[in-house]
């Protein structure tokens, strides 16, 4: 099976859409994978927005992840779940798409994206426009066969120095090759922003647990991510230094972590993560 439209594609069937306005879709999370982290749920919502936006401009451009003002994590998604995706397009033209959306499992919201913006780049730099057009037709008709996604091998983090309970640093070595690069994107492999965010969340949660985990009897969870800004692409094989710093929060057991990602001394991504006690 080709990895294109499989290794990092999270829309099986578009069930309803108005070009450039809104859309709904489904994705069946394969049961055989180890986990389906929240960042991939966000990726699924973003991919639905990308399909609706690309169709609006007849696949001349494709949006790339750039800004996500607020992402609220409502619940986990277990392998084997059926995701219902929805997006509302605020604006869409040849330059950018602005949107919000969410995902549901059995009617319960699991994630909410607010005020996201993706600049449109020439589609032919990333993929074959005719292949995307054909795929969109399939997604809107019978839908793609399920079970294509085989999970993703998340790069491990190498711990660097930090200040105990205050900040942490880690090295993320992006693999030179991985199945998802064939899908994201075939003509220009880019490390997915959502996988970077997943790594940043892991680093932030480790920091938060050491800093405030002992003052709460329920496990800490990521509640909300804000100010996500992707400044440049991360290529296969690049070394990314991740930074996490605890800043003021709204209570002893609820804190904000300021996140950064740097390549060759240049900041490539920033975000903030609100961490707090889970439902228990």
């Amino acid at each position, binding site marked *: 099976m080709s990895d294109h439209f499989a290794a990092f594609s999270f829309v099986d069937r578009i069930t309803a859409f108005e070009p450039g306005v809104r859309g709904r879709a489904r994705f069946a999370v394969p049961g055989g994978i180890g986990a389906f982290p929240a960042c991939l749920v966000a990726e699924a919502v973003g991919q639905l927005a990308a399909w609706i936006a690309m169709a609006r401009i007849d696949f001349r451009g494709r949006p790339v992840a*750039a*800004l996500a*003002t607020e992402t609220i994590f409502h619940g986990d998604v277990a392998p084997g779940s059926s995701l219902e995706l929805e997006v509302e397009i605020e*604006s869409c*033209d040849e*330059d*950018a798409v*602005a949107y919000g959306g969410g995902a549901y499992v059995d009617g319960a919201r699991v994630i909410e994206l607010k*005020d996201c*913006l993706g*600049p449109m780049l020439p589609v032919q730099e990333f993929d074959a426009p005719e292949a995307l057009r054909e795929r969109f037709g399939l997604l809107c008709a019978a839908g793609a066969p399920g079970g294509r996604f085989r999970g993703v091998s998340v790069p491990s983090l190498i711990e660097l120095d930090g200040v105990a309970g205050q900040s942490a640093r880690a090295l993320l070595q992006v693999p030179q090759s991985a199945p998802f690069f064939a899908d994201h994107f075939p003509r220009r492999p880019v490390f997915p922003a959502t996988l970077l965010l997943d790594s940043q969340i892991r680093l932030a949660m480790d920091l938060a647990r050491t800093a405030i985990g002992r003052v709460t009897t329920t496990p800490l969870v990521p509640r909300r991510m804000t*100010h996500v*800004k*992707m*400044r440049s692409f991360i290529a296969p094989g690049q070394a990314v230094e991740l930074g996490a710093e605890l800043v003021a929060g709204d209570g002893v057991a609820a804190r904000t972590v300021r996140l950064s990602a740097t390549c060759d001394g240049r900041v490539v991504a*920033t975000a903030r993560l609100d961490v707090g006690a889970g439902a228990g």
Partner: protein
Amino acid sequence: MANTEITKEEIQAVFPKVAETMADALGCDVEDVKLDVSLIEGLDAESIDFLDMVFRLERAFKIKIPRGKIIENARGDMPEAEFEQKGVLTEAGLAQLRTYLSEIPAERFGNPMKVADIPRLFTPETFCKLVIHAQREAQAAA
């Protein structure tokens, strides 16, 4: 609508919210966002930050700001071919830009000046004007 019609009072009226929005986008203290600071050279803004600032200003002021609106506003009614040629401002285009960005000291304008370098001139005041223009256009359309 001509830039000269924007008063200092109008700019001061929107500046606090513009400064707050920009500080949030740039991750800096609001006190660092002076009316006349260069966004690129003084506050390290990059192209993605401009996109972010415009996106935030749209929501903060409930206005629409099309991409490239600052340069479009600067050009005004002047035909594009008179404003710039092959990515470089003409003499007339440069004079038009100086009039529009009247708050920018003359020595900061290049001559010749590439259209791509215009954002290097931008200050928070430039964005205050952008907001005021958008507000006026929205009122005119209502």
